[in-house]
């Protein structure tokens, strides 16, 4: 059997090669079309049109990679290639790790996340493909006001259920963390205060705010953990503390 390192290295290699291929395809398609139809817009026009958006999207992109990699593991590559991270891939992976009781950042969590994200990506491609083929009969149904309303509330509908698992004390793999919410108090106050200034501003700066809150929560957690205000209970602790086992040992 391969070691954990061998498996991880292989998945990173697949992900990196896959990402390079995806980049080539994404840039290749416009280039092929530009050459075939003699419709290249010029480098200066491309630069002019992309500069503003790049300034907004590069911090978001970096924050996604920094914050999602520890959660999703080696499936981060496929997640970013297939997109729809918040509204589909992240919830799918969290849910899969929850039902298998695997811990984020562990090898088992990595495997489960890989299966979940691959399944979800295949499913999305198939659903979109089928709907494009059936576009004519489906279009009026999807244009219904009720359907439009329901789909605009997809994020709260998703994260209500997920919040229970994501903010509870059980982090998977039988590990429980007591008091970890204490570490989010200050960032939560900061984000709330910003929301009272402008919710649109917070939503627009989501990527940058994640980059700011990560070190805040990380170092506060570390401090509170060292002071004993946050306690981490491993499965082995519970086995040792199990009174039935103690009595069995005594017998």
């Amino acid at each position, binding site marked *: 059997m391969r070691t954990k390192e061998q498996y991880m290295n292989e998945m990173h290699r697949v992900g990196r090669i896959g990402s*390079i291929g995806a980049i080539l395809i994404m840039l290749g398609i416009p280039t092929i079309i530009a050459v075939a139809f003699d419709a290249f817009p010029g480098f200066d026009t491309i630069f002019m049109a992309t500069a503003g958006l790049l300034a907004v999207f590069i911090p978001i992109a970096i924050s996604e990679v920094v914050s999602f990699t520890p959660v999703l593991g080696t499936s981060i590559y496929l997640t970013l290639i297939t997109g729809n991270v918040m509204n589909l891939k992240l*919830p799918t992976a969290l*849910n899969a790790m929850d039902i298998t009781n695997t811990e984020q950042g562990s090898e088992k969590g990595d495997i489960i996340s890989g299966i979940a994200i691959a399944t979800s990506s295949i499913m*999305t491609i198939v659903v979109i493909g089928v709907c494009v083929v059936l576009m004519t009969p489906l279009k009026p149904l999807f244009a219904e006001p009720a359907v439009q309303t329901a789909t605009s509330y997809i994020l709260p*509908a998703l994260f*209500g259920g997920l919040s229970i698992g994501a903010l509870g004390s059980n982090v998977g793999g039988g590990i429980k963390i007591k008091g970890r919410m204490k570490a989010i108090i200050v960032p939560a106050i900061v984000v709330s205060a910003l929301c009272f200034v402008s919710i649109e501003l917070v939503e627009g700066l989501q990527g940058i705010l994640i980059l700011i809150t990560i070190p805040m929560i990380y170092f506060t957690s570390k401090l509170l953990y060292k002071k004993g205000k946050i306690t981490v209970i491993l499965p082995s602790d519970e086995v040792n503390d199990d009174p039935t086992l103690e009595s069995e040992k005594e017998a």
Partner: protein
Amino acid sequence: MSFYEIANSTLLYICVAIGIIYVLGLSVVYFKKSWKRGIEVGFTKKDLIDVVKSSASFSVVPSLAIVIGLFSLIAMLGIPWPWFRLSVIGSVAYEIMAADAALKATGAELATAGGEMFVLIMYVMSICILGGVTSSIFISKKIQNGAIKMKERDQRWGALGNSTFMMSILVVLLIPMLISGGVTLLTWLTSLVVTLILGILISKFKMSWLKNFVLALSLLIAMASSVAWTNLLG
């Protein structure tokens, strides 16, 4: 060639088909490798099938939501390119923003735009969203190795440290949702309550099969409730 002649051209359909097949193929490779390793480390086939069932059933509704956005994008950019963009990296909001940026940069209007404008939109959509994929090639392995080392040094701190990343995402995502109140808050609460009720049903009546569908069901019921909340609150 005009904007829409290129946007609906056979060549673009062929290119897009190749792109989608590539992403589909990559997903299959990920699936097979993860599945094989899952069996190696001791998961049963039933465990993994449960993950597949749950992930597939849950993915249908958000995928249909993507289709709604796709239909609106098709009206702007023809069929093949939006099909590709939303099957892979993109999202509707981003694509519209990118198309708008391209139009503004040249001062063009969609109704009178030429073929070059369509190619420019394709470039803008592709380039501006590649930051994540590109940076992950360089930093994701380092980030993951760092997290693993942190855990090896101190398993307790490792578990806590790893969980802080998800907490950061949730703080930034959830707080605006909760503060905005109204239908958003009520939809969030509905999803939470439905998940709790399903959790009670699962543990009280030993309905373990239901566990795979909790997320899909809470999503569907909460989305349906958003229509009722909207009608109620006006």
